[in-house]
Structure formats: C-alpha cells, structure tokens
C-alpha cells in the first residue's frame, strides 16, 4: 500500500513529546475548567495551568537528565534534541513565572476583567507552541509553529478588550504579523523551489548538491529573515514592539519580551545552522555562508538593531516603552552570536537567552507590581518609590544592573560570551560598538534607579509603604537569585548551553 511509504506518526512518538502533550492537555483542561466555572472561577484554570506547567517541567528535567540522542518524531516534522530540551526548560520557566505572577496582577485579575481565566490557559498554549518552534525541522512545522505562537500572542495583546490601547496593540500586532509571515512564506517557497525539499536537512543537501545562484540564495535568506526578525523584533521589523508592549497588559508584555523572542532565536539557530552553517563538517558548506556574505549581513543587522534600540530607549519616559526598546537592543547583542554561525557563538546565544529571560522577566514583573499600586508606568510617577517598597526597589536594581551588563551580575557573563564569540574571529568593530552600546544602556537603566531612589516625590504625594503580595516576592526572588548567582558561578549553565549546541550538531 502506497500510504505506508510515508513516515506516519505513531503512539511511541509521544514518549519523546510528553511535555508538549501535557501542556496541550493542560490547555484543554483549563479551558474546560473555565467553562464549568462559567468564566467566574479563574482559580480553577489557574491551578490546572500551574499544575500542568510543573508536570511538564518535571518531564523536561527528566528528559535532560536522561540525556540521550536526538529523536525525529511526528513523521520527520519535529526533532527532540539537546537544544529542544534547553528551550523547553526556558519556556516553562517563563510560562510558569508569568502565570504565577499574574495571579496577583491588577491588570489581569482586576475586578472589572471578565475573562481572567483565559490569560492562564493562553499562556500555557503559548508555551507549548514556543516549544514546538524550538523543535521544528521542516518548513511546514516552522511556519505552523510560528503562526501558532503568533495567534496566541494577538489574542493576549488584546486581552484588555475594553481598552482602546490594548485593542490597538493587538491590531498592530496582527497586521505586522500577517505582512511579515507573507514575506517569509515567499522566501520559503523560493527555498523549496531551489532545493525541492521541505526538511532542513534536505534543504542543506539540495543547496550543496545543486549549483546555487548566490543572488537568489541571498534574496531567499533575506525574505526568510524578515519573518524571523519580526518574531524577535530586530530592526527594521521592530515597529510593533514598543506599541504592543505599551498597550498590552504588563504581564503579557513580560512574556512577549522573552518567550516568542527566545523561540524565534531557537528557530533561527536550528534553521540557519542546519541549512547554511559548516556544522560538524567544516569543509562542506562554508561556501554557502560566503556565497551570500552572511557574516556581514548579520553583523550589520546586529549593529543597527542594538544601536537603534539603545538610542531610542534614551528618550523614553514610559518605563514599559523603555524596556521595549531595551529588549530591541538586547536582540542586537544576541544577533552578534549569529554572525559566524559557529558553535561558540550559538552557545553564547543560548546562555544569553537564559540570562535575559531571568532579568527581563524580573524587570517587567517589578513594573507589574508597581502598577498594581500606582496605576502608572511613567518614569515621573516612580519618584521615590524605592523607599515605599525597598525590597522591590532592590530587586529592580539587580535586574537593571544585570540588563546593563555590569559585573558581577548575570548579564555581564552573557555579554562576555557573546563578545568573545565575535572577537575570536576578528570582528573587533562589532564588539567595540556593542561595548559602547552597553555604556549607553547604563544611562537609561539607571535613570529608573535614580527615579526610584534619588528623586523626591512631588509635594503631597502618597508616601505610605506599598504592600506587595508574598507570591510576587517569591517569584521575583526566584528570578533575582539566579541573576545574581549566575554572574560569578556561570559554569553549569554554560556547560548546558554548550551541550545543547553540541547535541544540535551531532544530532543530524
């Protein structure tokens, strides 16, 4: 029978895919719980979501401890390997932190909200979709997973549906998403036309076998980069980023700033590493990279992205917008790891992403906690707030210092590895530019610190201490402690990142 020639998925595939399957089940169960509670009992969905995320996390940890080779499952569409395991843990951490923190966030759980539970199970679904993004090894799954993350994001951005700004953010996100997906699809179709293959391995083989025209490969790569740059908000596809972060509820902005970005990077790493990079066999495909002058292309994108993000962040008076532009500049630093498509550079990206997830989530969560009380994200309203909530202020200082990249915080270790990766191959101008950019970052990050601790509040302003929920302190501590510790004890995470990339290259 001809049908059997296809690689049809079987039940045994699920053995390697437990975290994803659990999260999909959690999503359905939490949705059902919401419906049973008639939309008035968000606690049901919250408990189910937290439980599901923890279970999925436990299975992911077990999979990491088990180690093991890469497994190609679901009819060759998905690969579960070391890198997938790394990102699973990252996404579950981000999802779980967001769900837990949002339970006490006024913007999500405020009295007027009518769809509170939806936030929790949408976050779960997004986590599952992001995990698939890190596992896709086929053009179809690449596009499908990106759209899955996108669709959930559009709904979450418009979560406050009675707020004009939130709906505006959602609409902007949808339109930008549709356009960039279209551009990327065009690139993917060209790639399929050139190689006749859908899997990344097949594309690589096709590119190496046929006589590839440098110009058409360059155009294809740029078109595909357009779609991915949108996901990670790299210049010139960053326009949606500040508006969406400002309009969406802050917990949503928090997960947007780490989750889909990390997933976009995971996808880029797997796609470009598999199709273009030298990988384990350096002689084979280095010509592909040189053919399109990949290092220069990525170096320019990285340089423009980090400089633009930093310079515009200088002018922001709204902390959320400032963090949005700062996240754009961090994308620039991260892209530096892509310039040479070497194992060292990609491992540096993974390390930086893990650190970035911790510190950026933390900074956004502090904004959420403050927003619960002062109902504002304007810098002026942060005056003297450090004395009303000393612990919160201290944690904000930790996160911002780490975002700046000052030793001994984790951000420094992250930047160190990325910078080393480019300096190893004599890209000094890029490293110097990035170092200068970090200095610019110092100014706008510490302006927030200055407002919190050194500026006097306006006359007659409220100076009573703020009551911060214990759950918020717990989540923030869980994020702040590694941000501190990873600054001087980064060995284990580095080993994990190296292993993830090492398994990526041997897994093929």
């Amino acid at each position, binding site marked *: *029978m001809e*049908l059997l020639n296809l690689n*049809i*998925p*079987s*039940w045994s595939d699920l053995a390697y895919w437990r975290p994803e399957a659990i999260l999909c089940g959690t999503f*359905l169960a939490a*949705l*059902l719980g919401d*419906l049973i509670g*008639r*939309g008035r009992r968000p606690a049901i969905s919250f408990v189910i979501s937290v439980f599901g995320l923890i279970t999925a996390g436990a299975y992911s940890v077990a999979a990491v401890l088990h180690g093991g080779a890469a497994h190609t499952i679901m009819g060759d569409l998905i690969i579960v390997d070391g890198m997938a395991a790394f990102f699973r843990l990252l996404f579950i951490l981000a999802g779980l932190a967001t769900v837990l923190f949002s339970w006490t966030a006024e913007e999500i759980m405020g009295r*007027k909200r009518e*769809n509170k539970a939806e936030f929790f199970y949408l976050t779960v679904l997004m986590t599952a979709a992001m995990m698939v993004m890190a596992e896709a090894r086929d053009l179809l799954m690449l596009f499908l997973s990106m759209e899955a993350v996108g669709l959930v994001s559009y709904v979450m951005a418009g979560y*406050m549906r*009675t*707020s*004009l*700004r*939130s709906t505006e953010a959602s609409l902007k996100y949808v339109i930008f998403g549709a356009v960039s997906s279209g551009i990327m699809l065009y690139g993917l179709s*060209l790639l399929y*036309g*050139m*190689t*006749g*293959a*859908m*899997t990344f391995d*097949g594309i690589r*083989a*096709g590119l190496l*076998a*046929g006589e590839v025209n440098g110009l058409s490969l360059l155009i294809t790569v740029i078109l595909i980069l357009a779609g991915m740059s949108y996901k990670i908000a790299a210049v010139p596809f960053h326009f949606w980023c500040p508006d969406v972060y400002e309009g969406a509820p802050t917990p949503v902005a928090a997960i947007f700033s780490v989750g889909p970005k990390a997933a976009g990077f995971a996808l880029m790493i797997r796609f470009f590493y598999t199709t273009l990079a030298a990988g384990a066999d350096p002689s084979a495909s280095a010509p592909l990279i040189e053919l399109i002058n990949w290092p220069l292309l990525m170096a320019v994108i990285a340089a423009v992205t980090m400089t633009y993000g930093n310079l515009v962040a200088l002018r922001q*008076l*709204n902390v959320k917008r400032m963090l949005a532009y700062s996240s754009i500049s961090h994308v620039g630093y991260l892209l530096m790891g892509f310039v040479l498509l070497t194992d060292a550079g990609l491992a540096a990206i993974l390390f930086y992403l893990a650190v970035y997830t911790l510190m950026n989530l933390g900074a956004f969560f502090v904004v959420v906690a403050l927003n619960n009380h002062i*109902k*504002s994200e*304007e810098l002026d309203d942060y005056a003297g707030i450090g004395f009303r909530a000393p612990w919160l202020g201290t944690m904000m200082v930790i996160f911002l210092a780490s975002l700046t990249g000052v030793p001994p915080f984790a951000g420094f270790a992250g930047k160190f590895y990325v910078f080393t990766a480019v300096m190893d191959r004599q890209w000094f101008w890029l490293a110097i530019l990035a170092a200068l950019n970090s200095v610019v970052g110092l100014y706008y990050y510490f302006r927030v610190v200055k407002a919190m601790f050194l500026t006097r509040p306006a006359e007659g302003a409220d100076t009573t201490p703020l009551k911060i929920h214990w759950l918020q302190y717990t989540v923030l501590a869980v994020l702040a402690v590694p941000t501190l510790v990873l600054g001087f004890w980064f060995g284990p995470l580095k080993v994990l990142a190296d292993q993830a990339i090492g398994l990526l290259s041997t897994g093929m």
Partner: protein
Amino acid sequence: MDTMLPMGSVDVGMNGHFATVLIFVLIGFFFAAVALIVAKLLRPHDPNPTKLTTYECGEETRGSSWIRFNVRFYLVALFFIVFDVEVIFLYPWAVVFKHLLPLPELGVLVFWEMVIFLVILSLGLAYIWVKGDLDWVKKLVDRAEDEPPRRNPLLKSVTNEEGSQ
C-alpha cells in the same frame, strides 16, 4: 533528498518552472493591454451626464462604504469556521479510514486522532456557547474604564501653553 516533482515531468530546475510563470504573466499583460488599446482607438469619445450614471441594475450609492459593521457578523463567521474546518478534515479522513482500519496499530491511531480532533473542536463550540457569543443581543460595555491618560512628551508643551493662557 526528497525531491517532489509531478509525475512524468522533466526536471528543468526552479528557473525553468518560473520561466513558465513569467511567460503566463507576460501574455496576461499583453492581452489586457491589447484589449484596452484597441478599444481606446476604435470607440467614439463622447461622455455626457446620463451616460456616466450607474449602469442598469446598480443602485445609486449613498454615503461611504467605510462604515463599521457589527462585530457579531465576524463572530458568526468564526463560529462557521469551527464546523467548516471539521468537515474539511473529516472528509479526507473518512476516505482513507476504510483502508487504514484493517491495519493493526495504525487503524486505532487514526481513529483516536480524529476523536481528539473532534473533542478539541467541540470544546471550541462549548467555549463560544458559554461565553455568550451565540446570543444575538448583547449588553453594551463601557469602553472608558481602562483608559489611563496618554502622556505624550510632544503634546506636553501644547497643553502647558493652553493652561497658562
């Protein structure tokens, strides 16, 4: 490498395939241009107001077509998609299911896959039902509640001037 070409076709490479597309596009443009140019050359040019009115069955338009449609229409459209997608997937599934059923493991797998799919879709239906999207008459929502004042640094100076006058 999994090259996929239609049966019996010759592999002429991507440029070959797209050359066909290009020729189609060019011929298309050519036909349209010829029709327009020939008509322009042959027809008499004598417009008058009666001639320029809407032709036969067309209504005279009133107002702009840029009006707001009630969002409920979109909800109904989405609701329709739930069943539409269901049928689209059920139909090919039903066609191959007969052949797959005798196979030991695969038949069961394919059956339960469709059951899971249907359960997910019916959850979607339950969702719109419980959330009240099947009710045609809805209560109005107060839009203003979530709007913090937008502070634009560029507008600040303008409002200050107004305040001082």
